[in-house]
């Protein structure tokens, strides 16, 4: 099943209601306030947030002066293009090292899906016959290392881990050394979930990143903030605080196979200019996709879109 079929399947149950209401009050030509209110509801319910939604609605109002929309679909498409534009302007593919191992580090709050995302990335690259090393730098959560070990076995990646409670910086150090020694193509660093409000834990994260960049010049090539697709407006604050501590190069929005739309990514992209690089759409190892701005934007409005 394609990504957007999957997305839409999830959305179908919830979006029909609003969509039919919007359909019923839409009139070709001028956009009434009542209509714009309903449109606002669509965006807010997708967790886009009040600020970003207001900006989008305002620009639509401007645009509607010059032209009239024949159908609701036309209008959705215009809005979706607007949203896609926000992402397109900051879009960047996953960076790869010129030589030596490429390093991706996953960071994020507890339960956002870092370990699963690492597993999916490991699957992606080992199936391309790349040599992958996993670093279990989450030494805090019970059995986090065991979880990664299962994934390492399943995907055929190497694993570097220390005992529970040991220094994550030391794990990062050993993993970086191992990645170089074993001539790995890719080093994936899993970190412990940490709430952005915990200053000490944010300091610990800085240290992990520092260790990696000291051992492998130019690394980490990506520091991905993993955000649960069901996250609400707090996601923006998470992104802001994490980005202040370490250089966040991109987002991975997870759990998009539910009915949530991950609209918080729009707010993060427009306010902080952090691009979305990956989306998680299921529990299988293969359920990780590169981000597609147009597809994502269309799904916010529930528009049919051919799989890209």
């Amino acid at each position, binding site marked *: 099943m394609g990504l957007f079929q999957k997305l839409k399947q999830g959305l179908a149950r919830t979006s029909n209601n609003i969509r039919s209401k919007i359909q019923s009050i839409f009139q070709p030509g001028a956009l009434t306030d009542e209509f714009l209110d309903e449109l606002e509801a669509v965006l807010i319910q997708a967790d886009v947030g009040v600020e970003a939604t207001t900006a989008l609605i305002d620009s639509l109002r401007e645009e509607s002066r010059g032209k009239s929309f024949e159908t609701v679909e036309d209008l959705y498409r215009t809005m979706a293009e607007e949203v896609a534009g926000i992402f397109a302007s900051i879009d960047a593919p996953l960076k790869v090292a010129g030589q030596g191992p490429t390093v991706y580090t996953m960071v994020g709050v*507890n339960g956002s899906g870092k370990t699963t995302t690492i597993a999916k990335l490991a699957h992606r690259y080992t199936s391309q016959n790349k040599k992958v090393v996993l670093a279990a730098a989450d030494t805090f959560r019970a059995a986090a290392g065991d979880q990664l070990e299962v994934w390492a076995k399943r995907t055929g990646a190497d694993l570097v881990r220390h005992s529970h409670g040991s220094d994550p910086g030391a794990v990062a150090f050993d993993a970086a050394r191992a990645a170089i020694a074993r001539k790995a193509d890719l080093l994936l660093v899993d970190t412990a979930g940490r709430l952005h409000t915990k200053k000490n834990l944010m300091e610990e994260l800085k240290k992990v990143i520092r260790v990696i960049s000291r051992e492998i010049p130019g690394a980490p090539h990506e520091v991905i903030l993993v955000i649960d697709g*069901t996250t609400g407006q707090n996601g923006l604050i998470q992104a802001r605080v994490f980005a202040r501590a370490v250089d966040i190069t991109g987002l991975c929005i997870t759990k998009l196979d539910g*009915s949530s739309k991950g609209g918080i990514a729009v707010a993060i992209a427009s306010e902080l200019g952090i691009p979305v690089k990956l989306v998680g759409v299921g529990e299988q190892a293969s359920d990780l996709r590169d981000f597609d701005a147009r597809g994502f934007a269309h799904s916010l409005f529930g528009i049919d879109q051919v799989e890209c």
Partner: protein
Amino acid sequence: MAFESLASRLADTFKKLRGRGKLSEKDINQGLREVRLALLEADVNFKVVREFIANVRERCLDAEVLESLTPAQQVIKIVHQELISLLGGRTHPLDISGPPPAVIALYGLQGSGKTTTAGKLALQLKKSGRRVLLVSCDVYRPAAQKQLEVVAGMAGVSFFTLSDRVSPEVIAKKGVEKAVESAHNVVILDTAGRLQIDDEMMDEARRIKEATLPRERLLVVDAMTGQEACQVAEEFDRVVDITGVVLTKLDSDARGGAALSIAKVTGKPIKFASLGEKLEDFQVFHPDRMASRILGMGDVLTLIEKAEAAFDQQKVAQMEEKLRRKQFTLEDFMDQMKEVKKMGSFGDLIRMIPGFARAQVDVDFDPKELARVEAIINSMTPEERQNPDIISGSRRRRIARGSGTTVQEVNRLLKQFFQARKMLFQMGSSDKRLGRLRLF
């Protein structure tokens, strides 16, 4: 500006109207727009907000509010009251009555915090004298069973599971049988994370329920959840008829509007709040405090409780006495800093103060900073500590040398001290109830 305190925003809105005599319906609508914004920013579900605002509007149009001299406060009061009643009004205890073992099943989305909650709940029940058996029914996520086993060890309670090739409902049933054999009186079932739209998995949730008839079926929800919370709760409630909610990750700065959405759509109470990585960080849920938090009004009650728990009561009494006599020395200053530090992260505390709900984390104390302050104060003579006004330039140089710091740091400390003293003496004469709070 997003995430400002609702109170100050409302006050601004109504301030513009001052001097116009009575408020009109239009003015109230204007104010309620602010309330609506605050609720949406707190991630309260859009539909819930709509309905809620309609209800509040009705109450606000009451003559009492329109003619009040302080309409902003009246509106906030009404909103606050309505939120509290929506959130369940009072605290709801766990029901583990009936013939043992009482079974508690935890359900929720992936990553909401079920396994950690299982451990926290187990510890709390153990402390109240129950014999708890933790059962892992998560056969999907790698090492999930192992995680619960470790957590059970940390909580000091028993653990049970079967191979991950056994179906979850069978594990659950065997777990309960095992509890009967081994005289455990509470069984906590940790289930796999599942999406509410995954029919197969939801059916499994139902089968676990039917196999074990849990008295409590708790939905574990991440406080940072957005608009989806409604659909999630509705669907779980439909399938397993939840008896309550556990709200997790409340130690984040999320406003936690999800709580309201869930309470509204399911009509089920929120029973526990989980707020930290330690197993002890688990509390009974208080609707009034949550209402304040959603509105960005801070949580003074929790702050006071924390202060009471951490402060040495005798010292507090001494301090109050000193302030009455307008004595405040560097030694007292040092004591106060240590007391405040005992209460935990300064940033967390600041955020509980009304108007500071969104304060940035940078205000956190650097533990090294405190050590440096201590060194500076210890390098002073007893006379200087008692009477800091005598600390001249040459004394400052000596203190800096003695403490291994710089004159600038000594200056900064003294400046902070003088400011604090000034503030304290001003507050010293005011409200008695603030006695315990006045020092920060």
